[in-house]
């Protein structure tokens, strides 16, 4: 115990001796007894009301099991979430959103007791001007530098915006809500903060109290990682927690420049993944709004594994079977309806760096799919890419084989580089597609039985997107435009089972052509995409 703590204890004990004696018992006991009677009566009435409401509640809850609630929570549970610059503690169920503006060291968080329009700006802004009558919303912005001089230091109080504005301001704010604000700076740092809270005219006292308690709970600090949220789009926090004392955060956000939802995991501490030995990772892929069955991504960081992914909404249970450890169920959460995603996300923090299997089950308990996972390998893997050799369109390494795509004039060749730098042609795709796309595929295998495949071809000018379905989530493939305007598409993936479809879409998201990966033949019933 240090000197200050000792002095503090002594002081508190001395001051406590000076505390007044309590007021007389009779009055307090009389009031308590009266309250016991009232509480008892209220409980009886509540019980009756509950019985009457059961049927209604059951009907209401069944279709709305996915409320955007973060993983592993119960009503009333407290959750602490770390986002850049801000640590916030709140009571479930709430929807927490994060805006991370890429070019500015700024973070904005928004907490609501309702599903906000997650594809818009924060609630009560010009672009998103309304909120439910019984809603409460807290928006907090933290940025480095640039704050007005002379502001109060944190901690601050939320002050009513109506103060000093006169009665004519009554009801003018965001559907008649009460608005509160605070502005200040964080002592001993260059973080400047601004917060606004809105309380709907019919918000409950409990929600109002919880909102103020959340504001009081805020802690401002340097970011633990950079969340890869696009500027202008908010990300919904689906789950958060700590693994080996390292915070992790699972978010969902509209994908950039294409339809679909990006699901991303951030883990670690520090402003930059690549400097200072700080940890963090993320999934930069695209999750189209419809999902075939299961997509899972194990990420190993600092000796621990975070397993996360997405499953079709029909999946009722995701069972994780780590190798050498007891199986357990990952908890499922769906983003708020306003995000427009039709998948359910899951995350499973695990100590150690295990391999294993995840098994998805339907509501009847039937197994839908079993997928083996391995550290750092996704069912939609990050394929090692390299700078293509001179003259090549693309190149990389798959299960030990060096490959490249080469334009030979009338066709695109997939070549394998040998040790003496010779190239052998493995597959050829015609440069002039008969329909929307030409198609070729090849599977590589190494001595240990690992496989990887690559699909490629040429896309006609009207093709704006090529989507690949394998056993996991569909995703848009790479498209490179050659000097003469020819579009070459390609995608490598592990494991290399050629099963699924590749689909060409135009600018209106109309399916122009679908090809079966196994046969290379056209498909009459293309898989549904987000444009359907």
């Amino acid at each position, binding site marked *: 115990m240090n000197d200050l703590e000792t002095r503090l204890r002594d002081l508190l004990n001395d001051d*406590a001796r000076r*505390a007044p004696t309590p007021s007389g018992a009779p009055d*307090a006991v009389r009031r*308590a007894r009266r309250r016991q009677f009232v509480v008892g009566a209220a409980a009886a009435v509540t019980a009756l009301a509950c019985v009457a409401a059961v049927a209604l509640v059951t009907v209401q809850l069944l279709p709305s099991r996915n409320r955007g609630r973060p993983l592993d929570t119960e009503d009333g549970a407290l959750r602490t979430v770390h986002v850049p610059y801000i640590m916030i503690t709140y009571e479930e169920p709430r929807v927490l959103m994060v805006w991370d503006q890429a070019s500015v060291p700024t973070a904005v968080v928004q907490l609501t007791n309702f599903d906000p329009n997650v594809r818009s700006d924060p609630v009560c802004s010009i672009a998103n001007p309304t909120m439910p009558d019984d809603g409460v919303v807290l928006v907090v912005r933290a940025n480095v530098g640039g704050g007005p001089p002379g502001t109060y230091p944190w901690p601050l109080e939320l002050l009513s915006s109506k103060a000093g504005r006169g009665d004519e301001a009554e009801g003018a704010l965001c559907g008649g809500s009460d608005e509160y604000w605070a502005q200040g700076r964080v002592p001993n740092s260059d973080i400047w903060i601004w917060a606004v809270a809105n309380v709907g005219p019919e918000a409950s006292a409990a929600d109002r109290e919880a909102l103020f308690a959340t504001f009081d709970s805020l802690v401002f600090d340097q970011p633990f990682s950079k969340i890869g949220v696009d500027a202008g789009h908010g990300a919904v926090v689906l789950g958060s927690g700590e693994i080996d004392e390292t915070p992790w955060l699972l978010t969902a956000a509209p994908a950039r420049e294409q339809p679909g939802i990006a699901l991303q995991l951030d883990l670690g501490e520090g402003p930059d993944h690549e400097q200072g030995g700080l940890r963090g990772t993320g999934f930069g892929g695209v999750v189209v709004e419809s999902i075939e069955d299961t997509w899972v991504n194990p990420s190993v960081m600092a000796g621990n594994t975070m397993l996360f992914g997405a499953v079709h909404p029909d999946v009722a249970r995701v069972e994780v079977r780590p190798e050498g450890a007891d199986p357990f169920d990952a908890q499922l959460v769906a983003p708020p309806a306003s995000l427009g995603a039709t998948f359910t996300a899951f995350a499973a923090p695990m100590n150690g760096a295990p391999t294993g299997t995840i098994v998805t089950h339907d509501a009847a308990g039937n197994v839908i799919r079993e997928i083996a996972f391995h550290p750092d390998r996704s069912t939609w893997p990050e394929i090692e890419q390299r700078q293509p050799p001179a003259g090549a369109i693309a190149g990389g390494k798959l299960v030990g084989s060096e490959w490249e795509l080469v334009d030979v004039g009338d066709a695109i060749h997939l070549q394998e580089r040998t040790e003496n730098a010779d190239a052998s042609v493995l597959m050829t795709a015609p440069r002039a597609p008969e329909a929307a796309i030409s198609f070729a595929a090849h599977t590589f295998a190494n001595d240990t039985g690992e496989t990887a495949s690559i699909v490629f071809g040429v896309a006609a000018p009207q093709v704006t997107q090529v989507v690949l379905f394998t056993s996991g989530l569909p995703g848009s493939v790479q498209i490179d435009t050659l000097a003469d305007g020819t579009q070459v598409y390609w995608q490598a993936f592990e494991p290399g089972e050629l099963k699924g479809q590749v689909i060409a879409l135009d600018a209106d998201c109309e399916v122009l052509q679908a090809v079966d990966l196994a046969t290379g033949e056209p498909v009459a019933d293309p898989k549904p995409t987000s444009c359907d």
Partner: protein
Amino acid sequence: VSVTVTQRAKAEPRGLEDLYLRHAPGAVRLAYLITGDPDIAKDIAQEAFVRVAGRFRHLRFPDAFDAYLRRTIVNLCTSHFRHARVERVYVERHAERQEPTEQGPDAGDRDELRRALRRLPAKQRAAIVLRYYEDLPEQGVADAMRCSVPAARSLISRGMQTLRTIVEAER
């Protein structure tokens, strides 16, 4: 049967009074250390007792009456400051108020520390009182303040840091 009923009818009122006598002094001390105001402390302690005892039969863990009472006191103290929106004024006023003169060689240091404690925001002050007067572990502080353990840890740490800064600055 009638004897049993009679005894129970008598026992319960006596129980509430016992409960009050047992817990009220500690409740007032806790409220006093957080608010620094004897009158407010008495009011808050009584109100907290009425609220918790009033739903005593509905408490999930009646044996943890003191924990419920502590949580309610902390809540009422912080609500008091917030709802009245007088914390800043209060803190300034009390920071300037002459504290009772201490006897002994370290009286000046104590006054400094007391003033610094009064200047802390209500939540930090409550966390510090719970940790260093009630001797609660971080989990206990978090329970009493209805926040997570990291948040409680942060409140204590920030409070101590602020105390240290203020005390050193005044030297």
